[in-house]
């Protein structure tokens, strides 16, 4: 389980996170919703080690992650699919997946995981020799998720997986997120599409200007008047 306590992060004099605390229990889907600039991405980037925290703690199964280099955090079982997908456009799909397993040395197991990812995303298998830059947005998102899965994470962090995708593709992505979770991977999901995110989340947090202002099960927040007004549109 991932446990964040009183986490403060600032860059360039701006306080991006002002002491947030949250928990991601094993085997669950947890979502962070909030407006642009609320600190959602910063939270994920701090967990993954890309951003340094000024104070607080991030414990992963009782082990402190703050101050650890990124590769150790990945090896500890945390992977991230970054915002905007960021696939390596001039590498093939297969190379993109292989680079996701960069830190692993267990060749036979990597091969197994590759087959597993191809099973989850048959489309990627069809295109394994294609350059990633030639894939559609949805396929690139699948590749970004598949690439992160190749490190065999126990916690998968997804930053805005639905960004810029057609509604039908968004549904595909979300059903894959559920499928990954069903297979035992804990999911921490950051989304602007609050409606979709809350529907699939076991636990949800609302982030506003660097503070957590609300939390509860996905269903509770879906029904909450303030959430409806601010994030779901009044009529939904």
């Amino acid at each position, binding site marked *: 389980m991932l446990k964040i306590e009183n986490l403060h992060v600032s860059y360039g004099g701006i306080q991006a996170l002002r002491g947030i605390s949250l928990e991601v229990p094993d085997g669950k889907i947890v979502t962070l919703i909030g407006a642009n600039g609320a600190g959602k991405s910063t939270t994920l980037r701090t967990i993954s080690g890309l951003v340094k925290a000024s104070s607080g703690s991030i414990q992963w199964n009782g082990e402190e992650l703050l101050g650890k*280099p990124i590769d150790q955090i990945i090896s500890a079982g945390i992977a991230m699919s*970054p915002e905007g997908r960021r696939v390596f456009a001039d*590498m093939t799909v297969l190379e993109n997946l292989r*680079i996701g397993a*960069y*830190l692993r040395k267990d060749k036979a197991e990597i091969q197994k995981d590759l087959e597993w990812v191809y099973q989850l995303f048959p489309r990627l298998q069809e295109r394994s020799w294609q350059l990633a830059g030639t894939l559609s947005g949805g396929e690139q998102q699948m590749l970004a998720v598949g*690439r992160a899965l190749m490190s065999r994470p126990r916690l998968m962090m997804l930053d805005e997986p639905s960004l810029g995708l057609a509604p039908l593709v968004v549904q595909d992505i979300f059903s894959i997120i559920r499928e990954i979770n069903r297979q035992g991977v804990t999911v921490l999901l950051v989304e602007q599409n609050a409606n979709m995110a809350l529907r699939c989340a076991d636990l949800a947090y609302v982030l506003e200007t660097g503070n957590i202002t609300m939390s509860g099960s996905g269903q509770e927040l879906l029904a909450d008047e303030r959430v409806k007004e601010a994030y779901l549109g009044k009529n939904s």
Partner: protein
Amino acid sequence: MQEILPYLINGISVGGQYALIAIGYTLVYGILRLINFAHGDVFMVAGLIMVYATTAMPMYLALPLVLVVTVLLGFLIERVAYKPLRSAPRMSLMISAIGVSYLIQNLAFYITGGVPQPVTNPIPWISENVELFGQSTKRVTLVTPVLTILLVVALVYLINHTKIGMAMRAAAKDFETAQLMGIKINAVISMTFVIGSFLAAVGAMLYFTNYPSVSITSGGMPGLKAFVAAVFGGIGSIPGAVVGAFVIGLCEEIIKGLGYTTFSDAFTFALLIVVLCVRPTGLFGEKVTDKV
């Protein structure tokens, strides 16, 4: 035709030497977007070390030592002068590179006393004269292009088919995402400096076999021309740097063959100006596409 042949062979040889230096520029640029102005001086230092080492110890120790010390120098330059500036504006990095270039030249001045150091013990075999199309030339002229091609093939294999090569390609495109894959960016950057310095050291050993002495400014011209070759080929691209280097080497020698020796350097820099005006990304340069 018979008269131009030796010039062509010379040109290919000079091109090979430029290529070995140009790869160092292009690799570092590909990853750090930095023109490593100190690279020509690293080349010069490799020449100096060769002069000292070959007089102090047997050849089989001296040559590996040249490679090791040069590689170490390249590694240290990055660690001391560029790594602390990782998140600084690119301009600071460039100024630091210029500073390193002058620092190396001045240190070399201090050590040599400003006197060109004669190459008294040239590398045997490759410095022997051979008969070629009726002209006498050193064997290094023939060895250089062959060795260059072999090293380039090895490098391309390393970059396309090994794990560290994959990491280098990933880091060259996107530092942050590469880090998210667990790639240690500093190790990858060090690796590019190690490879670049290694090739420059090989280039220096071949180059100075053909020259009577090494002076503190010996790195200037070949370094500059290799840089032009890298820009001409499209900086950041390895095939570009190699093709650019051979083209420039050949053109220079052909111009000399036609009797315009005085203009051969001018030609190279005129070529740079034309390339920058007509095709700023060079022959194989990446198109700069801004994502919407």
